[in-house]
C-alpha cells in the first residue's frame, strides 16, 4: 500500500550476474541442415535441378524432339559436342573474340571516364556521347562494321566494344560522382592528384558501381557476340557459338541448337557465380561497401 501512496518511490535493484556455467546454451553450433541451407551455391543448384526436371517432364509430354528436345537429349548433345564434336572449339573461338572486345571496351571506358572526371568539358563529352550512342543497338552497327573491317573478328570486336563501352562508362562515371566528399578530401590531404588520385581513391571507393557496369557490359557483350555470329561466322571455317547454332538449325539438329544455347547459359552462370562472385567477395563485401 505504501507504493500506492507514492508510485515513483522504488527501491534500488542490485544484482550479481550469474556465472554462465549455471545456465544452458550461450552459443551452439548450427545443425548440419542449417549449415547446408546457408550455402547460397547449394540453394541455387537445387533450383537448377528443379528447373531441369520441369524441362524434362514438359519435353517428354510434348514428345516432339524437332520442336523441343528433352533435357537429357540436350545434355547428351552438349557432352558429345564437347568431347567429340566442334562445340568446344567454337566456344573457345567465341570466348576469345568476346574477351578481346570486352577488354578493349573497358579500356576505352576507362580513358573516357578519367577524362570526364578531370575536366568539365570531358564530363560534357561523356554525357553527350553516352546519351547519343547508348540507345543505339550494337548490332545496328554491324553492316557498317563489315564495310570498315571486313568479314571477320575485327567487325565483331568493334560492335562488342560499342556494346560494352557506354554501359561501363556510364556506371563508372556515376560511381565517381557518388564518392563521399570526406574521402575525396582525405585523398587530397595525402597530396594525391591526377591519376594516383583516381586510381587509389576514386576507383576503389566507386567499385560497387564499377562492378555493376562490368556485369552489365559482360551481358551486353555476350548478346552482341551471339547475334553477330548468327549473321556470319567469325572467320571462314571456324565460326563461334552463334554460327554453331545457326548451322545446326539448318541441318535440323535441334538438340545441338539447344546444346549451343546451353553452352552460352553455362558460361554465363560460371562467370556470374564464380568470377564476379569471387571479385565481389574479395572487394566490396570485404570492405563493407556492400552486404
Amino acid at each position, binding site marked *: 500500500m505504501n507504493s500506492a501512496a507514492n508510485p515513483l518511490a522504488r527501491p534500488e535493484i542490485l544484482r550479481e550476474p550469474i556465472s554462465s556455467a549455471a545456465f544452458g546454451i550461450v552459443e551452439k553450433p548450427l545443425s548440419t541442415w542449417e549449415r547446408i541451407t546457408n550455402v547460397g551455391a547449394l540453394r541455387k543448384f537445387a533450383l537448377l535441378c528443379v528447373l531441369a526436371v520441369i524441362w524434362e517432364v514438359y519435353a517428354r509430354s510434348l514428345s516432339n524432339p524437332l520442336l523441343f528436345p528433352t533435357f537429357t537429349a540436350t545434355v547428351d548433345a552438349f557432352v558429345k559436342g564437347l568431347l567429340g564434336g566442334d562445340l568446344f572449339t567454337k566456344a573457345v573461338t567465341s570466348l576469345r573474340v568476346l574477351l578481346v572486345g570486352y577488354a578493349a571496351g573497358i579500356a576505352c571506358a576507362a580513358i573516357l571516364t578519367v577524362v570526364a572526371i578531370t575536366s568539365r568539358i570531358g564530363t560534357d563529352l561523356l554525357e553527350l556521347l553516352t546519351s547519343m550512342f547508348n540507345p543505339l543497338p550494337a548490332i545496328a552497327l554491324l553492316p557498317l562494321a563489315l564495310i570498315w573491317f571486313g568479314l571477320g573478328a575485327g567487325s565483331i570486336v568493334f560492335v562488342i566494344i560499342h556494346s560494352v563501352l557506354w554501359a561501363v562508362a556510364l556506371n563508372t562515371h556515376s560511381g565517381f560522382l557518388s564518392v*563521399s566528399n*570526406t*574521402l575525396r*578530401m*582525405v585523398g*587530397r*590531404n*595525402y*597530396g*594525391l592528384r591526377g591519376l*594516383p588520385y583516381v586510381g*587509389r*581513391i576514386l576507383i*576503389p*571507393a566507386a*567499385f560497387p558501381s564499377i562492378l555493376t557496369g562490368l556485369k552489365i557490359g559482360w551481358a551486353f557483350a555476350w548478346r552482341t557476340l551471339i547475334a553477330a555470329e548468327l549473321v556470319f561466322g567469325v572467320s571462314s571455317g571456324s565460326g563461334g557459338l552463334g554460327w554453331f547454332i545457326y548451322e545446326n538449325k539448318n541441318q535440323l539438329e535441334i538438340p545441338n541448337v539447344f546444346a549451343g544455347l546451353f553452352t552460352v547459359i553455362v558460361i554465363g552462370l560460371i562467370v556470374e557465380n564464380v568470377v564476379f562472385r569471387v571479385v565481389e567477395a574479395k*572487394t566490396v563485401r*570485404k*570492405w*563493407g*561497401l556492400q552486404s
Partner: protein
Amino acid sequence: MTDAAPLLAVRGVTLQYKTKDHLVTATYRVDFDVHRSDRFILLGPSGCGKSTLLKAVGGYMKPVEGEIRLKGEAVTRPGPDRMMVFQEFDQLLPWRTVKENVMFPLQASGRLPRKAAEAKALEYIAKVNLTAFADSFPHTLSGGMKQRVAIARGMAMEPDILLMDEPFAALDALTRRKMQDELLALWEGTRFTVLFVTHSIPEAIKIGSRILLLSPHPGQVKAELDSLSPTADGAAARVLEQRIHSMLFADAVEETAPERTGAHV
C-alpha cells in the same frame, strides 16, 4: 612556449563560398597565430565559419583576402604537412585495413618505404590502443575506434600541424570524454601542434591551451583566451565556461529577448 615566429600565421583572412543562389561570407578578416605545441581551439556557435576556416588552413579553399602561412610559406593546396581528422566516421578508406589506412599516407606521400611505414603505423596504432584491430577493416569497428584510427593516421604522419574538425562530435558522451582524455595523454607524449574546431565550450576548456572565440554571420574574432591546465579544478573551469558563454551569447540573448516575451503572453 612561444617561439619568435609563429608556426601558423592567419592574417586578415576573409573566406567566401557560393551556394546555389548566394555568395556567403563565412569569415571576415580573421587573425590568429598558432605556435608550436599549442592546442589551439576555434570555438563558436554554428555559422561562425570555424570549419570553413579549418578547411582554408587545410588548403581546400583560398581566402578572398588575407593570407595563411605555415612556417612562413603560403598555403595554396592540400598537403600531408597538415593532416586532417574529420568529424565523419567514413573518413577511413573502406578497402584498407586499420594498419594499411595508417600506412597509406606515409607511402603515398613518399615519406617512408613499406617496411618503415608499417613499423611507424604499428607504433601509432599501439598509442591509440588498437593493436588488436590492426588487421580489421574499418566497417567492423565502432565509431570511437574509427576516430582513434583517424587520429593515429594523422599523428603517424608527424605533420607540422594536426587539423581536427569536431572529431568527437558524432560520438556518445561517455566515449567523447574518454577520447578527450586520450588526446591529452597523446599530446603529453609527443607535444604535437593541433588546431581543433569545436562548438562545445567544456570541450574547448578541457582540450585547449589557447581558445579563439568567433562570433557568427560572418565569423569574426571575438577574443583569444588562455585556457586552464587540464589539472585545474572544476570550479575554475565553470567560471571560465560561464565567462566564455556570456561572451559568445551576450548578443544572441538580446536579439531573441523580445520574441521570447512575446511567446509567453
